[in-house]
């Protein structure tokens, strides 16, 4: 059963000159990991806000169509109800930190306090999530005295701890080092085995290829493509509209032009696929 359903949804910010999302329709099954890609300004953040209910209940504007998340029609719901179903990890962790807490530990407890979770249960949940996101040693630090990458982990932890059915992440690894990025993808992927559904706006194609189930490509507020990782990430339309593709795809495309990529073979997204294809090229040339 679909846990997220958008049907002909359009949205224009009160201050916007044109719609930020136009006639967007898709559905997501429980436990899926969906990556949302697209150039800057294509509507990725707006889509994140929509699924988490920040649109229309925090960011105001004109809506049409239907948005249903975990059984709730978000447009007629409210944020207090929505946080029980969907959590949003903001693009800039600075915007997420409450500002009312002195330590990372308290910051992560903040959401649970608001949900009225009993104190006896809180400690265990906070410990688990701090271990999972690798921030145990930051527990007593001020959320503001951390590096950008550390703040992003705290922001992620503060959403995970609330255990929403749907987790929406807006470029959650933008300030993380490569290993940190991989860890966040791994943590997020592991959530899906508990039936949690993931929507993640990201630019990092190599990691999307390794971890996501499906990809939605946005351009100028519309869905340009949606499909499996392979179908979408090797689509020649992507570079044309300014979406990054992995270097493995780019180099295979260049190789194709001089017949250095096996004819008829799908373009690669990952290192393994690229290596397999080019090995065939090398073998083929030696067979002659």
């Amino acid at each position, binding site marked *: 059963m679909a846990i997220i359903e958008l049907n002909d949804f359009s949205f224009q910010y009160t201050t916007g000159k044109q719609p930020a999302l136009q006639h967007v329709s898709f559905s997501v099954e429980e436990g899926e990991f969906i990556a949302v890609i697209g150039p800057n300004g294509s509507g990725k953040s707006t889509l994140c806000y929509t699924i988490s209910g920040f649109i229309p209940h925090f960011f105001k504007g004109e809506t049409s169509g239907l948005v249903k998340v975990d059984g709730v029609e978000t447009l007629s719901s409210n944020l207090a109800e929505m946080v029980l179903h969907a959590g949003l990890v903001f693009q800039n962790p600075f915007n997420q930190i409450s500002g009312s807490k002195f330590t990372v530990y308290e910051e992560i407890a903040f959401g649970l306090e608001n949900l009225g979770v009993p104190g006896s249960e809180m400690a265990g949940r906070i410990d688990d999530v701090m271990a999972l996101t690798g921030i145990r040693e930051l527990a007593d630090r001020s959320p503001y*005295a951390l590096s950008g*990458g550390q703040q992003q982990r705290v922001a992620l932890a503060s959403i995970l701890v609330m255990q929403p059915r749907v987790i929406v992440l807006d470029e959650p690894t933008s300030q993380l080092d490569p290993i*940190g990025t991989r860890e966040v993808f791994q943590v997020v992927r592991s959530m899906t085995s508990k039936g949690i559904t993931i929507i993640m706006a990201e*630019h990092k194609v190599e990691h999307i290829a390794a971890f996501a189930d499906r990809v939605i490509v946005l351009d100028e507020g519309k869905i340009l493509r949606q499909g499996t990782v392979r179908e979408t990430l090797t689509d020649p339309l992507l570079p044309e509209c300014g979406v990054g593709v992995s270097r493995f795809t780019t*180099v295979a495309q260049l*190789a194709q032009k001089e017949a250095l990529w096996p004819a008829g073979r799908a373009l690669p997204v990952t290192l393994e696929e690229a290596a397999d294809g*080019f090995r065939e090229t090398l073998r083929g040339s030696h067979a002659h």
Partner: protein
Amino acid sequence: MRIEINDLHYTYATGVEALRGVSFSVEPGERLAIVGQNGAGKTTLVKHLNGLLKPTQGSVMVGDWDTRQTATYRLAQRVGYVFQNPDEQLFCSSVGEEVAFGPRNLGFPAEKVEQLAQEAMALTEIAAYAESNSYDLSPSMRKLVALASVLAMDTPVVVLDEPTTGQDAVNIGRMAHIVNRLYEQGKTVITITHDIDFCAENLARLIAMGQGKMILDAPMHEAVAQEALLESTYVTPPQLTRLGKRLELSKSICTANEFLSALRGKQ
């Protein structure tokens, strides 16, 4: 403008020892990448170049100026620093004013200020937004405004802190173009980044930091081959380097062209 860093230590007021003895020099016109895990001391290091931070121990020379004895506002003539988060940098009411503020503040005559501001806005392709308020623009556009406002100061050294973060392919291409342009102008470009693929394609030397120390300093082609050292500071080698190594073509491939010519050579 030569930069010389000698046994640099820095300890924050909180007691965090962010730099623990860093020494290297940068010749004029070099293109240097600084990489390393979160919290390795990268930003702390470059904040010493324009005097935002002063050494706890050791020294930083920018040309013939010792940063310990030079006021920060004077260092701004020599080192332009583009913040990672543009919102820590922008404050004027319009993009045009923002970009003109730096050169005006450095005391350039009005005509020169105008010329530098126009050139910087043209290079970053934001001239169409000169009348807009920076905070009405998207975060990725604000990053370009922050960059333009530093380029307009025409400093011999330009430091970019995470220029590709949150940018799409078009803007990353724009960043690459700007780095090459600064190189052609003979300026020193120092870039902090986690985007190792961007480094490999656009910069010529790599320093890797780990836990407040320098663990690697080498020309880019040698540096990308140092997989174990890079991994020790949470950096994975560039995608094409890994592919070249996997296929046993070469350990030091940095660009698509290098990969393709290595592939042709094996045929």
